[in-house]
């Protein structure tokens, strides 16, 4: 970890108008929760549907994508990463620092809002809120590691990430059960499933399978990012 790199990355992510986007996403989740309250539809079923359908399927991957690709992608693109790489700082420190910043952002802008929304909608019933928050944290870390690795590998990281999240996890997941089992969203959901007794949350993968997969994929993402950053060739921005 390197405090200076962390500070620069935070400033790049939250500076100027960029923070607006990060604030707007969880705000909509809160509006949705408040609307359910007004409509008097805050039962456990709806709470689970909203937290899964909006929190897990949209908010978490989208924020992880913004944070994961945003901490390193633009710097590689415009060549500024050279100013960091030419300093005597090990590459794994650079990657791990940026990863930590991205995870912190995901925690603040996705995990905490999911926890608060859960508390607002379901209260303390069935430990729904903490269970979803724990799942979101586990999934968020893995998503972020994957997207950081993607951002180091490819310039189209954001689009590839979207294809994975929207086409593989959401679209194919509805048709092919196999695709559903091989998705970070389902692994995160299995963490939630294991922590809450309600039957409204159902993951297609069991926790003993999902937990090692979450850890393994996150570690693989981080390692891949370090390896690729070691031999990064900077080409001129398009």
């Amino acid at each position, binding site marked *: 970890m390197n405090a200076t790199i962390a500070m620069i990355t935070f400033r790049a992510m939250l500076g100027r*108008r*960029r923070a607006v*986007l990060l604030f*707007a*996403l969880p705000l*909509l989740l809160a509006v*949705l929760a408040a*609307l*359910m309250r007004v*409509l008097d*539809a805050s039962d456990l079923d*709806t709470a689970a*549907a*909203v937290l899964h*359908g*909006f929190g897990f*399927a*949209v908010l978490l991957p*989208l924020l992880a*994508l*913004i944070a994961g*690709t*945003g901490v390193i*992608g*633009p710097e590689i*693109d*415009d060549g500024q990463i050279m100013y960091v790489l030419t300093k005597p700082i090990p590459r794994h420190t650079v990657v791990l620092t940026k990863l930590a910043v991205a995870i912190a952002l995901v925690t603040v802008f996705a995990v905490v809002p999911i926890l608060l929304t859960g508390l607002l909608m379901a209260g303390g019933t069935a430990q729904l809120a903490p269970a979803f928050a724990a799942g979101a944290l586990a999934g968020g870390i893995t998503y972020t590691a994957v997207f950081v690795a993607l*951002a180091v590998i490819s*310039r*189209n*990281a*954001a*689009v590839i990430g*979207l*294809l994975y999240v*929207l*086409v593989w996890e*959401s*679209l194919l997941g509805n048709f092919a059960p196999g695709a559903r089992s091989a998705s970070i969203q389902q692994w995160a959901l299995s963490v939630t499933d294991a922590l809450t007794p309600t039957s409204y949350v159902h993951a297609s993968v069991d926790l003993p399978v999902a937990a090692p997969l979450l850890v393994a994929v996150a570690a693989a993402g981080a390692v891949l990012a370090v390896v690729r950053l070691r031999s990064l060739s900077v080409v001129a921005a*398009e």
Partner: protein
Amino acid sequence: MTTSTIHDIGYRRYEGRRLGRAYVLRSLFVHNLRAAFGLGRPARSKVMPFLLGLIVLVPALADVGAVSITHRPELLIHYSAYPIQVQVIVAIFLAAQAPVLASRDLRHHTVPLYFSRPVGHLDYVLAKVAAMVTALFALMAVPVTVLYAGGLIAKVPHRADHLGHYLGALVGCALFAVVLAAIGTVVAAFTPRRGFGVAAVIAVYLLPTVFVRLVQAIAEERTDFTLEAWMGLFAPFNLVDIVQVRLLGAPQTATGIPPGVTGGLVALAVCAALAGGSVAVLYARFRKAGLS
């Protein structure tokens, strides 16, 4: 103390024929349309638009194949439903390519270079939006045309009806393209940082869509069909489907469709407001860009 003088070294005005506004518009339009598909750029810029164009074709080809093998014409996807069924791919295309058109000039501070030539601010913006609309229209119209042509080859009955539905669906595709391009280019013009534009555009499409769907599901559960129908105005694809169903006579695909011609006219008005508002906002944005 030195005195400076300006020497007349024979500067001359250009007094020949000028190519005019139409030429400017056409050049900018063609340039932007090529940029939307990565043409005239390195291969890595072409990968994504063409990959997405291929993915969007796959369901149509598979469907045409299924119809011609099984000889069951009812399997043919409704032309007007196709863009809605592949909406995620269309949205990703928009998210990937809208920043290419709308943010690149801002990011590299090249906007003043355009306006130091006889290019009007409005022409510049109109060319960009029109190019994005054309690219999106092509993306959706090609698979719809494949469906229609496949249907003809497989000899589906009621040919005259099919032609009508097909032409209606093409109008629908154009409307989808206008609404999406209006939203996408505005969002991209305000997020010049690379990667952020993609995420911002997809967020602006995805969040309202999922939000509306969740509220609609709950409204349906409580048999509040009025709320369910009118919520449809807030999700881009549902909005255009309202126009398709109410004004173009297409079968319903999206969830919330307000009743009567009124519903259709309101939806059409929202589409028009989106398009007009988008051009106005972009005009204001690019007029100031690069001058600070």
